[in-house]
């Protein structure tokens, strides 16, 4: 096993506020790392720094041993780093299938072949496989905006996997998803993790979801790393209990 993601001493401040204050951690290949912490503790900022959406004030990010700090999100994505957002980010006017093709097309060929080649960039079969995998079969040609919230959330997650990523960062995948679909989502994520050896980092507030999905959990509080360990270790950690339940 080797580290897919190495984050060392990432800092990000907005004016005088230190949103992320020196966080370091590694993620091993095939791992599902949970990232939890109270609201405003810097989880999403940390994600954005890793993914190039924000430029960290200080620190370094490596993917597969290569320094990627400061790369643009599109460049990172083509290196195999994918993400989902906290709020829904599907393209409502495109059909489910078109959304998935869009999510994978920049990984096919080059600018020229994408202009002159087939309209689907050769991805219809892959998209339909993904549609089947996420149980959206009957919705393939529906506009994504017409889907229920939970279905859009599944589509959102499916889109993150179209490029065949090595590393996927999921920002609250379970937020607002009902219990049945939550089970589906967890099962799908576990399956992809096992079959494709995709590595995940998951931000989530739903403790049950995190504790049952993740192999390791990391806890942040006030921009700093508070604890790291197996779900059981983290649950028993007094500092974590204090951060969540207050003094």
């Amino acid at each position: 096993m080797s580290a897919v993601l190495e984050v060392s001493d990432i800092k990000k401040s907005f004016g005088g506020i230190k949103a992320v204050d020196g966080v370091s951690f590694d993620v091993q290949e095939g791992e599902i790392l949970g990232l939890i912490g109270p609201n405003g503790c810097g989880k999403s900022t940390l994600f954005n720094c890793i993914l190039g959406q924000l430029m960290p004030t200080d620190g370094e990010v490596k993917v597969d041993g290569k320094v990627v700090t400061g790369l643009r999100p599109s460049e990172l994505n083509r290196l195999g780093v994918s993400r989902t957002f906290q709020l829904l980010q599907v393209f409502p006017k495109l059909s489910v299938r078109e959304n998935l093709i869009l999510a994978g097309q920049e990984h096919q060929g080059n600018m020229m072949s994408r202009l002159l080649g087939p309209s689907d960039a050769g991805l219809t079969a892959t998209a339909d496989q993904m549609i089947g995998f996420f149980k959206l079969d009957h919705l393939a040609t529906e506009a994504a905006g017409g889907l229920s919230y939970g279905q859009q959330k599944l589509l959102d997650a499916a889109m993150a996997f179209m490029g065949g990523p090595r590393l996927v960062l999921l920002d609250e995948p379970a937020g607002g998803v009902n219990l049945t679909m939550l089970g589906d989502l967890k099962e799908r994520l576990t399956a992809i993790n096992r079959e494709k050896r995709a590595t995940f980092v998951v931000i989530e507030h739903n403790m049950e979801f995190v504790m049952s999905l993740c192999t390791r959990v990391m806890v942040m509080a006030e921009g700093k790393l508070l604890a790291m360990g197996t779900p059981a270790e983290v649950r028993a950690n007094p500092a974590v209990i204090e951060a969540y339940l207050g003094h």
Partner: protein
Amino acid sequence: MTVKGKYLRIALGIVVIGALIIVPMNFNRYGLYILSQWAVMTIAAMGLNLTLGYAGQVSLAQGAFVGIGAYAAAIMTTQGMPLIAALSVAVVLCFAIGWILGYPALRVQHHYLAFVTLAFSTLAFLVFRNEDWLTKGIYGISNIPRPNVMGFATNRPLPFYYFCLGSLGIVSLAMWWLIRSPWGRAFIALRENPVRALSLGIDTRRYTLMAFAIGSALGGVAGTLYAPLTQYIDPVPFNLSLSLDLLMMVIVGGSGFFFGPFLGAMIAVLLPEWLRFTQGYYLMLYAVAVMLLLIYSPTGILGILDRYLAARRTKAASALRAVTKSKLETAS
């Protein structure tokens, strides 16, 4: 339904194209001039529809690109060069300038971007008017020849109309290809959600510049047809109001719809002629009609059609679900 719909659409397409070829045969010189103008303006509006309608980048400079194309054609063809050479120069020039004009769009959006492009539009107008050595300034360039296309002279109005229509046909096919290619999808992604597009590996920077460059190049194509159409150009037609007219064509027709520019240009070019009997009231009627349309349907005329079709599809789908459900119930 979809197969029937497909045949219906193909049949409708053939009828429209046939009508565009056959009906103008009995038109007089003026009627043919207006129709040719429609074809030319449709090409320019299609370019703007790509930049604005698909990729979501506001531009108030499309008229300036039509001007650049027109001046390229006027200057070169009056020097005895063929129109095709002028076309190549216009396309390359407009593509390059459009690309450069796209850079501000990487930093500013919406009305700020509108102002940047508006400034460019003014700048281009000043160049047309003041650089006498190149453009002959306010005196304009006259006696612009019409081209020979594959051995056919297009001096007379009807052949020249067919030349414009043919050019529109070629541009439409190219545009259709572009829109349904992965590029078209990337342009839409750029308009709908640039942040998400970026996270899916879409190089939004390059696509933004491309949208500007291709859209502007089509403005140049329209310009190269405009010059031999009018056979005389001066700076006045290429001021800001042409850019605004083109913007209105795109919006009224239906921004982001393939056929929007065709419809929008038809309304902007033909309606004034049809409303001529109202004399001085025509602009007022026109203005009121546009306002009412945009209040009722901000997505233009094709937006109304789209809503109607979407509603029908939803109804059909829910009817289908109801039937399936009742079948299941009777079965159990």
